[in-house]
């Protein structure tokens, strides 16, 4: 019998629909695989107990037996980044600050995944409060890159990317504030999509930087990602910034022709320091593949692209400082300190937050000071508008923009504390889509030269709500390549 964990989510959903195998079989296969390799991988922070997984699987089997309509994720085992609120299932956001918190409500994402027939397996590892690019910023065990135990899975959705790559989940949800879905997808050799800002609800996703945060899917192929997006996209009355535009058929979009699409490339961006030569080579190769698919490659310029990182870090820190003000230990989460109120605040926040979170709260608090606001936050907001305008002008002459996803083909695990600035710069190709609210996808586009050869990602960015175009181009690229079919070695267990 086929190893059910090697199937794509699309194959599982179709197989379940056709009665080729039961959901209980699928769920059991994934559950057992998790039990076997999690001790080495650490992609999950919390797993749903076996009896609950089987009960959920039986419910879908029953629905099928009764001839009921099955959702796009029927029988598909799904992992959720631990940023998504799950009723009665521990939700820590990778932080001590929420250790032991059992949410009293179900977030939109968990609900929509379940309603689409998905089987939630658990909550995935991440950088604390989604702040980081390595998933190392956490007091909990660090998730490993399935391709190399000496390298990180990327971040902040490191657990989401590693789980898909190592098949401890069929598809996963991550969140992307400056590249947190795309960068780990790139580093783990899977597909990750950040939708248009507002396309997927933020209700039930713990806020990092509200104007940039967007939930999205990760999977081993474009179709899996499209299928998962179908399940979670759409207006949510609980999120005032969620878009009311109708949701297109993303699976149909994958089948749409991509030939004739114009792909814009900003050549100047490829000259910026920090882009590894092997990543650049893979990128140039990818452009040739896009041509082979019938697309044309055109030059574009984004004059303000170099301001992206500075602009992004001011805005995300400001919003983070604000969003994290609620963690005071008074209503939920561990409380520290015996003295007066100030002492409780100080002790709780000192013990609850890790160094990167503290750094960003301090930076964010600083830039929002009345006497600093204009110089930092006010200016960053204006630069943000310029960056968004750059995209609008670029899309006058192209349908998509292509860049590398991560400038490097692998980030070694850190033995000592990293230079934060160095890691911030690794977001240089990804933050633009967040600042402008655009949809973007990362997909496998090669491997590095080293041993082991680590995955390299291609990023495509589309205009607002042009997910269908993005998916059509990505599917065409995938059809012309085999990178996505490579699987990492089985982790050394025990």
């Amino acid at each position, binding site marked *: 019998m086929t190893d059910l964990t090697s199937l794509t989510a699309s194959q599982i959903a179709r197989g379940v629909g056709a009665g080729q195998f039961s959901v209980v079989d699928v769920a059991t296969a994934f559950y057992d695989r998790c039990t076997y390799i999690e001790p080495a991988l650490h992609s999950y922070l919390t797993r749903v107990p076996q009896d609950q997984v089987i009960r959920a699987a039986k419910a879908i089997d029953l629905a099928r037996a009764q001839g009921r309509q099955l959702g796009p994720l029927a029988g598909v085992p799904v992992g959720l980044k631990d940023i998504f609120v799950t009723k009665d299932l521990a939700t820590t956001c990778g932080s001590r600050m929420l250790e032991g918190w059992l949410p009293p409500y179900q977030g939109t994402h968990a609900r929509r995944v379940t309603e689409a027939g998905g089987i939630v397996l658990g909550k995935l590892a991440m950088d604390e409060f989604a702040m980081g690019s390595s998933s190392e910023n956490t007091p909990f065990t660090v998730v490993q890159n399935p391709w190399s135990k000496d390298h990180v899975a990327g971040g902040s959705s490191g657990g989401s990317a590693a789980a898909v790559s190592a098949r401890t989940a069929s598809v996963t949800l991550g969140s992307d504030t400056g590249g947190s879905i795309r960068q780990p997808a790139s580093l783990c050799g899977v597909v990750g999509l950040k939708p248009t800002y507002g396309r997927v609800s933020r209700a*039930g996703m713990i806020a990092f930087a509200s104007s940039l945060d967007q939930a999205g899917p990760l999977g081993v192929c474009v179709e899996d990602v499209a299928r998962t997006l179908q399940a979670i996209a759409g207006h949510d009355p609980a999120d*005032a*910034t969620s878009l009311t535009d109708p949701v297109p058929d993303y699976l149909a979009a994958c089948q749409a022709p991509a030939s004739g699409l114009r792909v814009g490339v900003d050549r100047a961006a490829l000259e910026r320091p920090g882009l590894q030569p092997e990543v650049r080579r893979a990128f140039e190769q990818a452009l040739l593949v896009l041509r082979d698919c019938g697309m044309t490659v055109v030059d574009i310029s984004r004059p303000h692209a170099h301001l992206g990182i500075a602009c992004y870090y001011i805005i995300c820190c400001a919003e983070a400082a604000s969003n994290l003000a*609620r963690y005071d230990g008074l209503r939920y989460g561990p409380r520290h300190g015996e003295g007066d109120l100030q002492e409780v605040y100080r002790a709780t926040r000192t013990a609850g937050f890790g160094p990167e979170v503290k750094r960003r709260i301090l930076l964010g608090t600083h830039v929002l000071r*009345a006497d600093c606001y204009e110089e930092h936050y006010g200016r960053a907001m204006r630069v943000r508008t310029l960056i968004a305008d750059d995209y609008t002008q670029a899309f006058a002459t192209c349908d998509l923009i292509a860049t590398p996803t991560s400038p490097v083909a692998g980030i070694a695990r850190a033995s000592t504390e990293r230079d934060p600035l160095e890691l911030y710069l690794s977001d240089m190709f990804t933050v633009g889509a967040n600042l402008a609210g655009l949809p973007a996808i990362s997909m496998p586009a090669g491997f590095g030269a080293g041993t082991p050869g680590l995955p390299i990602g291609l990023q495509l960015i589309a205009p607002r709500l042009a997910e269908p175009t993005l998916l059509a181009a990505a599917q065409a690229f995938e059809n012309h390549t085999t990178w996505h079919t490579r699987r990492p070695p089985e982790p050394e267990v025990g």
Partner: protein
Amino acid sequence: MTVDAYSPVIGLEVHCQLNTATKMFSPCEVALLAEPNTAIDAYTLGLPGTLPVANAAAVESAVKLALALGCEVAGESRWARKHYFYPDLPKGYQITQSDHPYAIGGEVLVPGPRGREAETTSVRLTRIHMEEDAGKNIHLPGEPWSLVDYNRAGAPLVEIVSEPDIRSADEAARYLRCLREIVRYLGISQANMEEGTLRCDANVSLKQPGSDRLGTRCEIKNLNSFRFLELAIRAEIRRQRDLLQAGQKIVSATLTYDVDRDRTRVMRTKEQAADYRYMPEPDMPVLVIRPEVVARLREQLPELPAARRARYIALGISPQDAAVITGEPELSDYFDAALASGGPPQKICNWLTGELLAARNNDTRPLSQLPFVPAWLGQLIGLIDDGTISGRAAKEVFAKSYAEGIEPAAIVARDGYRQVRDTGALEAILAEILDRSHKQLAQYYGGRQQIRGYFVGQVMKATRGQADPKLVQELLSKALAARAPAAD
């Protein structure tokens, strides 16, 4: 320079809690009197992953207020976050409006003091904005901990900020009363200072005569009754005046009013003031208030107290009585209903502000639910005016009518209140009384005029109060004259 040379310059910031069913940014029920921490939801507690969604009903109430106060309603306004750490503030920030409030400008015409109501003054408004309320911290004396009740957290508020156009403590109180009246007429808030649905901070500074420059202003926080508002402003004026007279500078500060010592006390100076780190609220889109919504709400505006007062005065009601009647929307509605069923306005007014209000003092029912309906006032007055009943009987008829919910005419018929005006019958009664009142007659003829009252009283007693008192007086004069002892 004399003591009185400084003129006070006062501006008020008034918080008013809107009476919507649910909170400003979540579908959580607003229930101020509920058991602590029962009217809460995930958003109210600031649980991770929750987001604000504006309450359309609260926005409509706020727009009505802006229209009633003549503000310009912004087609697009913005939400902002105001940060501070305190246990009653679940998210560590309050969602409010900062640089782009929904209502700008406007004016309140404040009636003059009692007896001079017609002498109105204008207080211009700077702005009105919407925001969410905080919870309540409860500090129990002697305990090393505090309790927090989040029922109020997230309740919808409007903050009405006036220009510094107010010149006295008394005017400040009249301005606030006037605002409260308007808010109650609109039906958008209980606006009760004791319950905290109406709250007030006062900015006070002193201006030197002949100077255009405003003095340094100080803000008195949390004035929770009209009396304290007046007392606190007076105390603050005294404090600033004393400082200036002693040659000292006023330092910009936030103060609290100490009731027991009748003085204001500095809580913190401007240097110690918190930096609220305002930022645009990224969870909320721009608040769009469409012109057609504004037009619809404008059409729905009720007649406001100032317009009603003017209408009553035109009917011949005194400004003082007009102010009393419009003091409560229900009373004014009752008066209008009574007027509509006919009757002389001034007499209706007298009965309304006299007997009816007195009776209602011991009654918790709202006016609209009283068994004594407005039309009966006119009926009662009609029965007096056509001589059917006496004024004295009318009071009894009113009391029975009010208590039993039976119309006055039916009470008169049932209980025999019809006045006796049969001259012959009254003469007979009078003769009988005089015949057995030798002592009193002697006193009368001895020069004690007041004894007439005794005779009238006896007649009224004999007729169970139904004799026409005027007629009795007339007949009594005649009878007394007829019986007068012949002069020697």
